[in-house]
């Protein structure tokens, strides 16, 4: 593309609006404007310059702030729809029953909500594409504007053309009484005092403060992109582990997802506040408030050369009490106290008794997690467990079925052998139910003689290697947003023409209020001519007609 040669002789890249060197307006549009658009200091913005190839079109689409804002608003509305009903991961129903759950609990609306996939909105392809487009928009828009803005601010000249000065929002013009050099010295002194950095070039002066704040938005966008990148990285295997395990008291088991580590649950503790129920608690019928959920554990590690699954020779790593808000951290993993189940059956005791005489031939104790096949009671009596279902759920084709492997509702098919019944009698025993005798009337039965309970801790195992990256993204975002919000970029141009006329112009990207305070201070100190706010003047005229500020562009700059 051809360069634009300015009247001052400087050659500007195609698309430049204000000459990089002297600031003269280069386009017809800028020449018409009373106040120039200073958002990007008049540099050539790719998206505003090229619109021919398909790449230009895509680039322009994503760099458009209008598109960016639309994406934000669409994301916002979509996210809010997802809060109308609880999302699937908060619903306590199995995957197959979920549809029915929504229809049952929330009626027709629930059914529609579920059918449209809104009950799992945040992991839907379209929501993720939306966030992805937002990310692309952030990247493209930042590159599109950030780079030219940086170049332009870095190469600023002190001396600007009169046409540039007069098109700033704040302008001033007049004669000074003192001589030129003295006025410039005074201005320089005062501005330096107010922590501006002052540059001079002959009879021109540029005082500038807080330029870095212009980069704030771009810095915070970098932070956001790093953050979103970190979130994406979690999809890569190995970066992210999320498992839950149940560990019973007294049990030592391998930690799923954390190879080579074993956890022993020594004790689960549930404490409640010993306060008396008051007001609202009585109303809701809640009189206990949980105070502490805690699992005392020992963490073990396999020696380096051990075979996987070998639980012998475990090395103790540490003892720890895992509590809510106090996860155990080890080797990049964290173990959280997430759930518990009280009083799970651990062992059951049965007496083998004669039905008529009620005389016991002996007692057997069954470890429900690891039952033996044969229990020899001595004196020629023994009991065999033919079938064990930890969580009995009825019969199917005559076979007892188990729902889960957790002993919630243990049931046994026993074969009882006694000297009187050497052939053995078969009995099906379920808690709280009379025994079934499938092969005919028995002489003996198994009588329940007590159980041993224990608690169970639900532990969540997490490894999230992306956390440091997310943290860095968050920190960069905060730095960017703080410097972009709490500082502003102020500039004052001052030139004394050979005829003794003073030309003054000022620009600030936001917070005009503070800029005017600075200007008042320096004007009073150096006896500068009065300045005027060209936009305020414009509005004062408009106010009588519509009573407000109209939509306008170019007052504020990124």
């Amino acid at each position: 593309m051809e360069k634009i040669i300015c009247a001052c002789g400087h050659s500007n890249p195609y698309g430049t609006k204000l000459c990089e060197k002297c600031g003269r307006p280069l386009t017809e549009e800028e020449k018409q404007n009373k106040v120039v658009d200073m958002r990007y200091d008049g540099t050539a913005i790719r998206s505003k310059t090229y619109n021919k190839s398909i790449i230009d079109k895509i680039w322009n689409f994503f760099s458009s702030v209008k598109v960016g804002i639309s994406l934000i608003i669409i994301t916002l509305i979509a996210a809010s729809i997802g809060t109308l009903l609880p999302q699937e991961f908060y619903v306590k129903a199995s995957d197959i029953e979920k549809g029915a759950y929504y229809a049952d609990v929330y009626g027709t609306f629930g059914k529609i909500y579920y059918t449209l996939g809104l009950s799992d909105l945040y992991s839907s392809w379209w929501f993720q594409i939306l966030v992805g487009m937002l990310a692309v928009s952030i990247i493209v828009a930042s590159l599109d504007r950030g780079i030219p803005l940086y170049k332009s601010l870095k190469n600023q000249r002190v001396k600007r053309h009169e046409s540039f000065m007069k098109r700033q929002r704040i302008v001033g013009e007049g004669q000074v009484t003192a001589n030129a050099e003295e006025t410039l010295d005074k201005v320089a002194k005062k501005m330096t005092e107010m922590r501006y950095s002052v540059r001079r070039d002959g009879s021109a002066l540029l005082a500038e403060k807080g330029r870095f704040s212009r980069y704030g938005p771009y810095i915070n966008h970098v932070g956001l992109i790093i953050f979103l990148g970190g979130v994406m990285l979690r999809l890569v295997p190995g970066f992210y582990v999320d498992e839950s395990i149940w560990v019973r008291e007294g049990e030592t088991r391998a930690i799923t997802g954390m190879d080579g580590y074993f956890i022993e649950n020594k004790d689960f503790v549930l404490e409640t506040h010993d306060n008396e129920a008051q007001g609202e608690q009585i109303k809701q019928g809640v009189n206990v408030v949980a105070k502490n959920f805690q699992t005392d554990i020992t963490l073990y590690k396999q020696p380096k050369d051990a075979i996987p699954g070998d639980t012998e020779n475990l090395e103790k790593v540490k003892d720890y009490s895992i509590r809510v808000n106090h996860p155990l951290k080890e080797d990049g993993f964290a173990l959280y106290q997430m759930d518990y189940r009280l009083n799970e059956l651990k062992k059951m005791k049965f007496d083998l008794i004669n039905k008529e005489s009620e005389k016991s031939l002996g007692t057997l104790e069954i470890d429900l997690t690891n039952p033996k096949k044969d229990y020899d009671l001595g004196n020629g009596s023994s009991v065999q467990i033919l079938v064990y279902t930890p969580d009995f759920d009825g019969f199917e084709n005559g076979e007892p079925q188990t729902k889960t492997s957790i002993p919630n509702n243990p049931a046994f098919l026993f074969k009882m052998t006694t000297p009187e019944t050497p052939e053995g009698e078969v009995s099906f025993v379920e808690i709280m139910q009379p025994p079934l005798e499938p092969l005919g009337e028995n002489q003996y039965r198994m009588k329940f003689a007590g159980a041993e309970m224990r608690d169970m801790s639900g532990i969540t195992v997490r490894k999230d290697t992306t956390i440091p990256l997310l943290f860095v993204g968050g920190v960069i975002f905060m730095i960017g947003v703080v410097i972009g919000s709490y500082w502003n970029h102020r500039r004052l141009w001052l030139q004394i023409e050979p005829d003794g006329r003073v030309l003054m112009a000022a620009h600030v990207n936001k917070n005009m209020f503070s800029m005017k305070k600075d200007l008042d201070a320096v004007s009073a100190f150096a006896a500068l001519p009065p300045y005027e706010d060209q936009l305020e003047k414009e509005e004062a005229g408009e106010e009588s007609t519509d009573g407000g500020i109209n939509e306008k562009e170019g007052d504020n700059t990124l």
Partner: protein
Amino acid sequence: MSLIDISGNLLFVAFIAYLVATLLFGGSIKQANATGNNTGKWGQLAIVVTIIGFLSQLGYFITRWIYTGHAPVSNMFEFTTAFGMFIVGAFILIYFIYRLTALGLVALPVALLIIAYASMFPKEVSPLVPSLQSYWLTIHVITAALGQSILAISAVAGLIYLLKAVDLTKPSKQRFWLEAVMYCLVIVIGFVTVTSTFGAMDYESSYNYVDKEGTTRKIIYNLPPIFGMNEYEVVEEHGMSPLVEMPALINAKKLTTVAWSLLVGSVLYLLIRLIARRRISAIFQPLVKRVNLQLLDEIGYRSVLIGFPVFSLGALIFAMIWAQIAWSRFWGWDPKEVWALITWLFYAAFLHLRLSKGWEGQKSAWLALIGFGIILFNLIAVNLILAGLHSYA
């Protein structure tokens, strides 16, 4: 007198002080209208009383903190009261930057309404559940509330801006919506009036009902029932019987509260309209006719600029750090989390619209009001209607 009583009294003093300061700010504006001086004697007195009120409320906050042993931001009453306090704090901060007394005339009544609203919730000290037992409770909640309060000041400036700028003499959408905002404020007064009236009478009616899981439960109404719970049966009833029975999905007790608030609020609104023979916005318009629109616009924008980073830090970053520690994941799409994200996205859109599309003045003022609406929605609706991990109250 125990510490908790002192705490309650300090809150009461603060409430009265804000009330007095509101009147003084009104006086200062009348005076300013006469003399043209923006911060006359009335104005100075008003800000002094405001600061006394703020210090008193800070005293409430600290004594309650000492008494309960944790930052008093753990239930609806505590959090909402603190939110009101931070709004006053944010107002004082902005006041000392811009010295605009008109701001107090709206900021203080808003804070008063919020504190009055808060005091309708149970004030008992309740012990903390395990997930809340962390110093992150203090850090996250206070920073988030502070951010929201500073953002709220932009809505205050926006409201004043619109009160002045909107032409109330001829019908327009803006006139309608501005009056709708005023109507909402009256509804809050209605809620406070009806709740505290029946509260003072110790009104109670109790029913058994069947909830959506099919279990029978008991519920106590503190307002005369308009709507009945699903398959309700009277246990003890006073005054009136429910007019309509609601399905299990709807909490008829909360709906009754909403209905009473709307009813009483609307009656109040009509009375005001009948007595003043003007719109409420028109009653306030003369008070703000001297304010500088440019300055208000600047204040609105500035408070978003100050509040946005604080909000991002408190409601998103600190929230994520705590969620990672307590719940094992930094983000779980819990309704409160989602609405914090929505608030953040909304203000991000606000800033981009302002910077790049030049949405200033009236548009910006409306956006600020909508933003405050989202903040209130997150505070009220998300806690009370949408079920989630944050439903503590």
